[in-house]
């Protein structure tokens, strides 16, 4: 189990790095917009000193835009904060709808870069499971990344969730699984190991082109605990 833990942790570190790098890029973009808008306000002040009359309505609108982008930057930081804390959380009862929503936010930049739209139908009622949040995030992100490679020409991925008495399921579709380039090797050994650590299952249905992640409501044995 210890070896398995190190292997999963070894994969978790690059995942953590990839996500934080992407978020810092997004943050830099928000800061760049704020920087230009504040700079334009400064330009107006310089121009006013040289006799150009101030357009107060324009300045008010610019200030509003700066506030909007500060809010955007704050949302990015908040997402990063939740993600960072999840890495230190032990096995716990967590709401899978919240975990999924977080992963979609974390992966949104990767989707944008590929011009892919992710359309999740996340239920408003909580769907609680017992899991290691960081491992669950990693597994969902792994599946979503693969789904982005399998997406069709319309570049649209839908996600919905299903509650059963024994488990909670995330379905990702429509995908062109039969045409995948990895010759059916997904979930690979490492993904499988990650799923095993939280007693989850990854199933691909080639007939209906759906990738499903199945999370048990509770984990029978302690498993790998990143918090210990």
């Amino acid at each position: 189990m210890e070896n398995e833990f190190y292997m999963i942790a070894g994969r978790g570190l690059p995942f953590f790095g990839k996500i934080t790098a992407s978020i810092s890029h997004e943050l830099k973009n928000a800061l760049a917009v704020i920087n230009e808008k504040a700079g334009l306000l400064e330009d107006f002040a310089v121009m006013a000193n040289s006799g150009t009359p101030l357009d107060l309505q324009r300045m008010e609108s610019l200030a509003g835009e700066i506030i909007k982008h500060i809010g955007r930057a704050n949302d990015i930081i908040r997402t990063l904060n939740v993600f960072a804390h999840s890495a230190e959380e032990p096995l716990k009862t967590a709401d899978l709808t919240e975990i999924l929503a977080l992963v979609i936010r974390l992966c949104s930049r990767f989707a944008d870069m590929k011009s892919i739209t992710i359309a999740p139908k996340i239920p408003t009622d909580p769907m609680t499971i017992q899991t290691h949040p960081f491992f669950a995030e990693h597994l969902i992100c792994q599946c979503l990344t693969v789904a982005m490679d399998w997406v069709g020409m319309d570049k649209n991925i839908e996600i919905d969730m299903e509650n059963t008495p024994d488990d909670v399921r995330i379905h990702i579709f429509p995908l062109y699984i039969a045409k995948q380039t990895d010759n059916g090797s997904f979930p690979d050994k490492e993904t499988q190991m990650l799923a095993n650590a939280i007693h989850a299952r990854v199933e691909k249905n080639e007939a209906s082109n759906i990738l499903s992640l199945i999370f048990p409501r509770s984990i029978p044995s302690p498993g790998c605990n990143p918090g210990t």
Partner: protein
Amino acid sequence: MKEKVLLVDDEKDFIETLSERMKNRGMDVSATTSPVEALKMAEEESYDVIILDLKMPEMDGIEVLAALKEKNPELQVILLTGHATVEKGIEAMKLGATDFLEKPFDIKDLSEKIKKAHTQKMIIVEKRTQEKIKQIIQEKGW
């Protein structure tokens, strides 16, 4: 002489505001959020400098740079990047980028880099003109 600049970045709010600031500084600025559109614009118009974001949907900035340079090797391109890593910088320079700048930046730094790139372009154009004149003189035996 006004520098003719094309700004390419998928962040609409960013290019709109930066365009306005550059125009305030006497530059002739066009802007687009689409790298594909940018390639078309660069074919139809002659720009002194193209300012290009490294990470964009549709096409990566490096891909756009390569496509631009293939069509016009003398084109001056300044790359904008979220994180100016040494590797990316080397890759960009190898592909012929004139310079690169990390976001967010001071507009004074960008203006300086644009002026340098513009001067570089003028030198290349002047050199090419002199070579042409020399060739004509040789051909005509003057």
